[in-house]
């Protein structure tokens, strides 16, 4: 494809591993790479070379570099593949160097999109892609139809009509200066734009619940050290995923696993225990992540050790969770763990109106009840009346429509306001699939090729 810029991406999953692969594609990729890869000679096509990788002029790594000249490459363009050691630092430095050399971080699926546009995806792949697209579309279609039967389609149509009406008023002024068309005043326009944005905000506020219904709930397992969070995770998963030890602070980092909780798709997040007095910097960093997980979860599951009396640390923890929960309006529930041991704390000792379930992670008591409670807490949030935004694509479309409308409100010139309104119209229209198909295609390409 002519004029395609050079794109770059890490092609292996994030995190530490033996190898990490960075790929570049585009007609200038070799030139860009020469700025941070020391080639011993002109690289031979499709043959791996051991090269020094430079970062800020110093040796960063020694890696295998393979040059695939277009058109016989995956994307059909000149490509370069760097197999470096899989340290996130090394990979991010390579990304930074590539960007400095003029490459642009690839969008999700962009390598595959280019492969397709350049005719490089083969028959089998195309069929696989076709099957994948169909299954995706059928699932998405079901959701869309359910929504179209309900109130979402009405809301979107009304929104679209309102934007279109506003745009038409502007266009009429631009195209028919010789007609006596009532001029849309800035105040009038500003008022109409503000009410459109309020409509969009109202719709967007349904997204968290909608997303949970479709994609599953993110359940953060939180608590003080040694209350049995990792044991509970393992128990809920039915396998030993997390390391469990008597030592407080064994879990240093958050850990995510998918689980089926009484029919609800959930992502369980085990977190490092929260305490005030850790002198260990790694443990403190882990606790930061725990707090981040609390902020980004759909359900907060607080684990308490009922075999010990609740102290001021527990009170602080509950306060913190309550504050974060109230802020985001997310459901919170408690697992009173270690029900196999004599009880020292009663459920009402919490002083919070949250559902509490007694469990024993080690014996497996109460797990079903806990799973049902979590599912109910998450599902309850999703069964709202009226139009619900359930997919990230819809939410993104509404967000960009809102941004475009905000920009339209900020300009006085009708031809510029029209640009923003057209963007808003395109964004709103894309929800019903009636806008530029390019966007739809892009979103598909970004879905079927995860990891670039």
């Amino acid at each position, binding site marked *: *494809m002519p*004029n395609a810029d050079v794109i770059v991406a890490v092609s292996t999953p994030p995190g530490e591993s033996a190898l990490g692969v960075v790929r570049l594609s585009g007609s200038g990729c070799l030139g860009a790479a020469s700025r941070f890869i020391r080639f011993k000679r002109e690289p031979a096509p*499709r043959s791996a070379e051991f090269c020094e990788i430079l970062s800020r002029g110093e040796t960063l790594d020694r890696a295998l570099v393979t040059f*695939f000249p277009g058109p*016989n*490459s*995956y994307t059909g363009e000149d*490509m370069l*593949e760097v197999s470096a050691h899989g340290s996130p630092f090394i990979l991010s430095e390579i990304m930074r160097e590539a960007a400095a050399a003029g490459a642009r971080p690839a969008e999700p699926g962009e390598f595959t999109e280019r492969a*397709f*546009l350049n*005719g*490089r*995806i*083969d*028959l089998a*792949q*195309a*069929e696989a*892609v*076709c099957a994948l*697209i169909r299954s995706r*579309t059928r699932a998405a279609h079901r959701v869309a139809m359910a929504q179209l039967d309900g109130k979402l389609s009405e809301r979107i149509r009304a929104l679209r009509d309102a934007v279109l009406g506003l745009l038409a008023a502007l*266009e009429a*002024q*631009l*195209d*028919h*200066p*010789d*007609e*006596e068309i009532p001029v849309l005043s800035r105040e009038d326009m500003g008022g109409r734009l503000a009410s459109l944005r309020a409509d969009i905000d109202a719709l967007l506020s349904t997204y968290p619940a909608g997303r949970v219904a479709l994609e599953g709930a993110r359940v953060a397992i939180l608590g003080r050290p040694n209350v049995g969070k990792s044991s509970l995770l393992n128990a809920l998963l039915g396998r030993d995923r997390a390391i469990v030890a008597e030592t407080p602070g064994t879990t240093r980092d958050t850990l995510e696993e998918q689980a089926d909780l009484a029919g609800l798709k959930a992502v369980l997040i085990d977190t490092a225990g929260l305490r005030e007095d850790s002198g260990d910097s790694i443990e403190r960093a882990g606790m930061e992540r725990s707090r981040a997980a609390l902020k980004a979860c759909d359900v907060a599951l607080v684990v308490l050790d009922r075999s010990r009396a609740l102290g001021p640390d527990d009170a602080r923890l509950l306060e913190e969770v309550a504050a974060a929960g109230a802020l985001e309006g997310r459901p919170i529930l408690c697992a009173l763990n270690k029900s196999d041991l004599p009880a020292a704390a009663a459920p009402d000792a919490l002083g919070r109106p949250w559902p509490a379930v007694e469990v024993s992670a080690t014996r497996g008591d109460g797990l079903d009840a806990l799973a049902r409670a979590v599912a109910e807490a998450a599902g309850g949030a999703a069964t709202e009346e009226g139009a619900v935004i359930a997919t990230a694509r819809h939410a993104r479309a509404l967000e960009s429509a809102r941004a475009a409308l905000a920009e339209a409100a900020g300009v006085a*010139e*009708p*031809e*510029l306001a*029209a*640009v923003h309104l*057209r963007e808003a119209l395109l964004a709103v229209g894309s929800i019903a*699939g*009636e806008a*530029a*198909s*390019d966007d*739809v*295609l892009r979103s*598909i390409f970004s879905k079927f090729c995860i990891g670039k």
Partner: protein
Amino acid sequence: MSAHLYPKSYDVIVVGAGHAGAEAALAASRLGCETLLLTQNLDTIAQMSCNPSIGGIAKGQMVRELDALGGEMAKNTDATGLHFKTLNTGKGAAVRSPRAQCDKKAYQFRMKEVVESQERLDVKQDEAARAWTSGSRVRGIETKRGVRYEARAVVLTTGTFLKGMAHVGLHSYSGGRASDPAAELLSDDLRALGFSVDRMKTGTPMRVNARSVDFSACEPQPGDDPPVPFSHFSERIETTQLLCWLTHTNDLTHRIIQDNLDRSPLYSGKIKSIGPRYCPSIEDKVVKFPHHRRHLLFLEPEGWRTREIYVNGLFTSLPEDVQLTLVRSIRGLEKAELMRPGYAIEYDFCPPTQLKPTLETKAVEHLYFAGQLNGTTGYEEAAVQGFVAGANAALKLQGREPLVFGRDEAYIGVLIDDLVTKGVDEPYRMFTARAEHRLLLRSDNADLRLLERGAALGLVPLEMRDRFRRYRALVEAKLAGGGADEDEDALRPWTLAKAEAQAEIQSYYAQYIVRERRMVERLRRLDQVAIPESYPYAETLGLLNEAKQKLDRVRPRTLGQAARVPGVTPADIQVLMIQLEKRRRSRRLESAPACAPLVP
């Protein structure tokens, strides 16, 4: 009637010498083709059958584009204009458009002189009766007088003449224009060749004598001072400038129209064809917008040496006696004498989805359609199509690259893509709202967008191109913050002031231009995926029946064009994309069994 074969064989024959035909014939002959321009009447070349005006919103941009490519319309306007006005001066540069009133006879005579003086171009008076074809290829034209002209390509620009039917009140008569005979034969022949032919309608207002108008009761509308030329190649306007005038309809006018609707061919059901929504008759305006108490009317002089005044805004086909009463109900026109009544005209057109983006017909090779025959309205829309059709007729014969414009490159590209992709359901007029990239398609940058293409075609002299390049370099230097002033004489007809203004406009829109360009790049990707001409939509699994039919009718050339076909959904495009890739892939496997290894 026994036909005799004309002894000279042509490369290109252009049928019709209106605004489309004149540009088509000039483009083809200037590109080196032996060309014949055939017209019913040598005295009506480039006739302004309706408004004596060129340009206007979006139309002005198209005329400027045509000029940058080497067309004639802008030069002709500059030479014969009597009132120049830039519209939308209160708004940004992107939506400013030039417009000029011309002396209608001077306009015609200058164009007549240009075409008659053009090398390699013969101009003859006769009426085309039949397209002479052999197989699916055109061979020439047979005329009503029985002459066969042989040619390798034919461009039809028949305007409103195919089975034209004029209406004044309930009285109607055959005619291609008020007093010119219609062409009764050619559209039957087109039907016989397999073309679908449909009906359309347009109209024109009455003309009144200036002596009978009380201008003191009207508001004077001066043109720009100094007048700004249309053409990039004109330095200044040297003609005498005249005033236009503004007046309004009123309650009485509207009542007269309401009371006589039963005598309107539009409202009595006599005319069934679809007219332009955007240039509505006064009957339509009064009926459809009853809350409007008045409508604007512009009184436009039709020339220096005529007293005829065009009453812009009073498009009507009411009976003559009603026209007189309603005109006289208007302030300033109380004693107006009608010189010609307004009338409506119905005519045959060919739905333009039967065309390729080069304006060549899909059914008959080397046969091209342009202008109102394609369902458009307006001189400007006609002229640019004529140019594109005439140029492509020549380029194809010469084995050169076809002339096709993207929607982001020119309004001409928007126009033709709309015609061949979406078709028309009413007479098509250009608006800036039709362009996705309005801020890129400005009147002020038509040269920057297209002049190099005109020069590459050979229609813009190299000397002019060099002057333009100096101007362009100067604009770029000014944008970069520098711009050591050039010698103005080396720039002419471009100027330092123009470069200054251009740099200002570009920096004013800079942010937005970047945005639009980004959008253009994204949209273009789909336009780079070609669809074979013979693609079997009917057999494509996964396409909905509606999409199959529509795609089969339009036969888009690229995936981008397919996506713009009305009724085709994004899901259809995804299916098509995958099927195309499979096809392409399996074809390549046949021809080259050794497939390069795929890199995962």
